[in-house]
C-alpha cells in the first residue's frame, strides 16, 4: 500500500482553517434563517447554531474542536473591544458628568442587588461576590454588533456603548480584585494575593499604552492613507491579543485601553477614524457560534431558579442606576428605560472571566459556574433581542 501514501490518511485530522470556514458558513446561514423565519437578530441565530453544534446538541464542536477556533474568537473579541474603547470619549464624560455618575451607579447598584439577592438565597458571600462582579458587565460584543447590524446611531446607542465600556472595566477590575479573596480562601500566600491582580492590571494597561504609542507613531509615518491605517490597526490588535495570551495579561483591559488611549492621546489627530469592524464581521460570526458552543443547557438546568433571580436582580440594579440619572444626563423622556434594556446582554466575556477567575481552583470554578453560566446562556440568547428592541424603539435603527 506504500504507493498510495499520497492519499489522505484516515481518520482525517481537523484543520483549523477549514473549521473556520465551515463555522462561518453555518453561522451565516443560521443567522439569516433566524432573521427571516423568527424576525430575531442574526446574532441570536449564530448563538443558536453554536448551541446546536456544541456539547448541548450534536457535540460536533467539542472542547478539542473549540480549541482550534480560539484564535479567531480572540481576534473577533479584540476587534470589538478596541472599537468600543475608541468610542469611549473622555471629553464627553467631562462634558456630561451625569453620564459618568450614571455609569458608576448602574454598575454598583447592579452589583449590590445581585450580591444581596444571592446571599439572601444562601449563596456563600465569596461566590455571590464574584458572580455579582461578573454580572456587572454588559456584553460589548452583543451591544456593539446589534448596533452595527441595525446601523443604529443616536443618544441611546452612544450612551449604551459608553456604559458598556465602563461597566466592563469595573467588572473586570472587581473580579481581579476578588481573585485576591479567592487566594485567601484557598490559603495562597499574601504575596500571590496582592501580586496577581496587580500584575494583570498593570501589564494590561502598559501593553495597551505601548500599542497606542506604536499605532500613533506609525500612523504619523504612513500619513492619511485609510487602507494603511486599517492594516496598521488590525496588526497591532492581533499582536496585542497574541501577547495577552503569552504574557498572561487581560485581553479585555489591554484592548479597551488601546482603544481609549489611541483616541484620547491622539492630540494632532494623526490616526484616521477608519472602521476596522468592517473587516471584523467574519470573526464576529465565528465568535458567537463558538460562544454558543461553549454554553450548556445542563448549566441552566443545574442553576435553575437561581439564574432567574440573578438576572432579575441584575436588571433591577441596572435600571435603577440608569433611570435615576437619565433626566439629568440630557436624554429624552423614555430613553432611560430603553437604555436599561440595552444593557441586559451578558456575554462570552462573563464566561471568560468565570474561567480565568477560577482556572486556578477547579472546585470553586464548578460552584461559580453553576451560578453564572445558566444566566449567561439565557442572556446570550435574549440579549441581542433586548438590544434590538431598545434601539428600534428609540428610533435609532436605520434599516
Amino acid at each position, binding site marked *: 500500500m506504500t504507493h498510495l501514501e499520497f492519499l489522505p490518511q484516515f481518520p482525517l485530522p481537523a484543520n483549523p482553517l477549514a473549521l473556520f470556514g465551515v463555522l462561518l458558513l453555518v453561522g451565516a446561514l443560521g443567522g439569516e434563517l433566524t432573521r427571516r423565519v423568527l424576525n430575531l437578530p442574526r446574532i441570536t441565530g449564530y448563538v443558536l447554531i453554536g448551541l446546536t453544534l456544541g456539547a448541548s446538541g450534536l457535540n460536533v464542536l467539542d472542547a478539542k474542536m473549540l480549541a482550534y477556533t480560539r484564535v479567531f474568537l480572540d481576534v473577533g473579541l479584540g476587534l470589538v473591544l478596541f472599537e468600543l474603547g475608541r468610542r469611549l470619549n473622555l471629553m464627553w464624560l467631562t462634558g*456630561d458628568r451625569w453620564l459618568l455618575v450614571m455609569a458608576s451607579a448602574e454598575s454598583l447598584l447592579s452589583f449590590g442587588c445581585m450580591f444581596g439577592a444571592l446571599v439572601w438565597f444562601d449563596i456563600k458571600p465569596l461566590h455571590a461576590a464574584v458572580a455579582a462582579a461578573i454580572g456587572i458587565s454588559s456584553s460589548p460584543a452583543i451591544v456593539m454588533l446589534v448596533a452595527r447590524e441595525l446601523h443604529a*446611531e*443616536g*443618544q441611546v446607542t452612544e450612551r449604551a456603548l459608553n456604559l458598556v465600556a465602563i461597566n466592563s472595566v469595573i467588572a473586570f477590575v472587581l473580579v481581579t480584585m476578588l481573585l485576591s479573596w479567592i487566594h485567601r480562601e484557598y490559603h495562597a500566600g499574601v504575596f500571590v494575593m496582592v501580586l496577581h491582580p496587580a500584575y494583570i492590571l498593570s501589564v494590561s494597561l502598559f501593553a495597551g499604552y505601548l500599542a497606542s504609542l506604536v499605532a500613533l507613531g506609525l500612523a504619523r509615518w504612513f*500619513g*492619511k492613507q485609510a487602507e494603511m491605517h486599517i492594516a496598521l490597526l488590525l496588526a497591532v490588535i492581533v499582536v496585542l491579543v497574541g501577547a495577552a495570551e503569552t504574557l498572561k495579561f487581560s485581553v479585555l483591559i489591554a484592548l479597551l485601553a488601546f482603544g481609549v488611549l489611541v483616541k484620547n492621546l491622539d492630540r*494632532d489627530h494623526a490616526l484616521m477614524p477608519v472602521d476596522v469592524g468592517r473587516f471584523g464581521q467574519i470573526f464576529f460570526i465565528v465568535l458567537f457560534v463558538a460562544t454558543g458552543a461553549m454554553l450548556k443547557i445542563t448549566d441552566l438546568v443545574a442553576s435553575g431558579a437561581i439564574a432567574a433571580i440573578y438576572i432579575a436582580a441584575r436588571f433591577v440594579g441596572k435600571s435603577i442606576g440608569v433611570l435615576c440619572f437619565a433626566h439629568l444626563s440630557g436624554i429624552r423622556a423614555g430613553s432611560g428605560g430603553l437604555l436599561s434594556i440595552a444593557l441586559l446582554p451578558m456575554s462570552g466575556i462573563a464566561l471568560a472571566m468565570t474561567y480565568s477567575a477560577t482556572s486556578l481552583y477547579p472546585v470553586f470554578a464548578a460552584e461559580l459556574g453553576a451560578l453564572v453560566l445558566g444566566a449567561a446562556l439565557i442572556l446570550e440568547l435574549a440579549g441581542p433581542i433586548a438590544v434590538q428592541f431598545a434601539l428600534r424603539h428609540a428610533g435609532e435603527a*436605520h434599516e
Partner: protein
Amino acid sequence: MTTSEMDFKPSPDLSMGVELELQILNSRDYNLARDAADLLKVLEMLEHPGEVKPEITESMIEINSSVHTRYDTLLVELRRIRDAVVQAATRLNLRIAGGGSHPFHKWSERRIYPTERFKYLLEVYGYLAKQFTVFGQHIHIGCPNGNEAVYLTHVFSRYIPHFIALSASSPFQQGEDTGFQSSRLNTVSAFPLSGHIPFVTTWDEFVAYFEKMRRFGIVESMKDFYWDIRPKPEFGTVEIRVLDTPLTVEHAARLAAYAQTLAHYAFTRRPLPASPDVYLVYRHNRFQACRYGLAGTFVDAYTQQQIPLQRDIINTLEVLKPHAAELGTGEALAALRAEADARRSDAAWLRDVHAELGSLNDVARRQSDEWAGRAPVPG
C-alpha cells in the same frame, strides 16, 4: 393660503434677520449625526435668544436671529445663540459646524426629520429631499411695502453673484472635491420651483402671478417657491437665500450687514431701475460665482460689460462706504473688502485645510472647531 395672507406686512425700514442651517456632527469620525431631536430637547432647557428649529433631515438644525436694525447687536445675538447650541451639542457628544456642505456624508444615509411637511417633501421630491442636506444662510431685509419689496428683489438679483462668492463654503460633496466654490446651489437647482421671481414691477402684479400659479395647482404657498430671492409678505421682508452657511457667525453677520447696506443704497439713491435684462445674464453670473467664486467673471446687465466679479464687488463696496458709515456697518464691509482683495473665501480655507491635513474627516473636524470659535489644534 388666502389672498389676505399675501398682504404685505410692512416692517421697520432696513431691519434685518438671519437664518443659518447648521451641520450636526458626531465626534467619532465627524460624519453627520442624526440627533437633531435630542439636541433641540436639550436646547429647550438652555436660555438663549433667537430660535432653534428642525430642518429637513435629522442631521441639520436651523438657528434664527431676532429682528435687528444694527450689525453690532445682530453679531452679539448670533454669538450667544451659537454658544448655546455648541454647549448643548457638547452635552450630547456632538459637534456643530458651519459650511454649505458636509464634505463626505452620503445622502442615502440621511433620514427625514419626522414632521408632516418634511415627510410630504420626501414624498414629492424623492431622493432630492435627502440630497437637500445642504446648509444655507438666509438674510431677511425689511421693506416698507410690497412694491418696494418687488423693487429690492430685482435690485438684489443683480448682486446675487456677490453673495454667492463671498459666502461660498461648499467645495466638497459626498467625499469629492467638486471644483466648485459653492456646490450647494447645484443641489437647489434640481428643484422644479427653484430659480428667480418673474419680472413683475408691482406687488399687485406679483399677487396676480401667485394667484395664477395657485390656480394651476403648482403652488399652495410662498414656501413652495425655492427661489434665490423671494419676497416674504408675512414678515414684510425680502429674503436672500443663495448664501452658503459661512464657517463662522462673524462672517454670517458681515454678509447680513452687506445686504442691509446694499438695500440702504438702493432705497435712498435709486441707482438702478428694475430691469428684465438682469434675468438674461442671471444664470450665467450665478454659475460663474458658484464655479469660480471671486475669480469668476460678471456680466453687468446695466452697462452690458463683462468684468471680473472680484472687481465688481470691490467697486460696490467703495460705493457703499458712505451708506455703511450711516448704518454702522463699516467694519463688516471692510472685512469683506479684505477678503475680496485677497480672493480668500471659506471654500479656499477648506481646500487649504484638506491639503494640509490630508483627510476630509479632518476638514469636518476643523469646520466644527472654527464654528465653535476654538483655536484649531495644530497638525
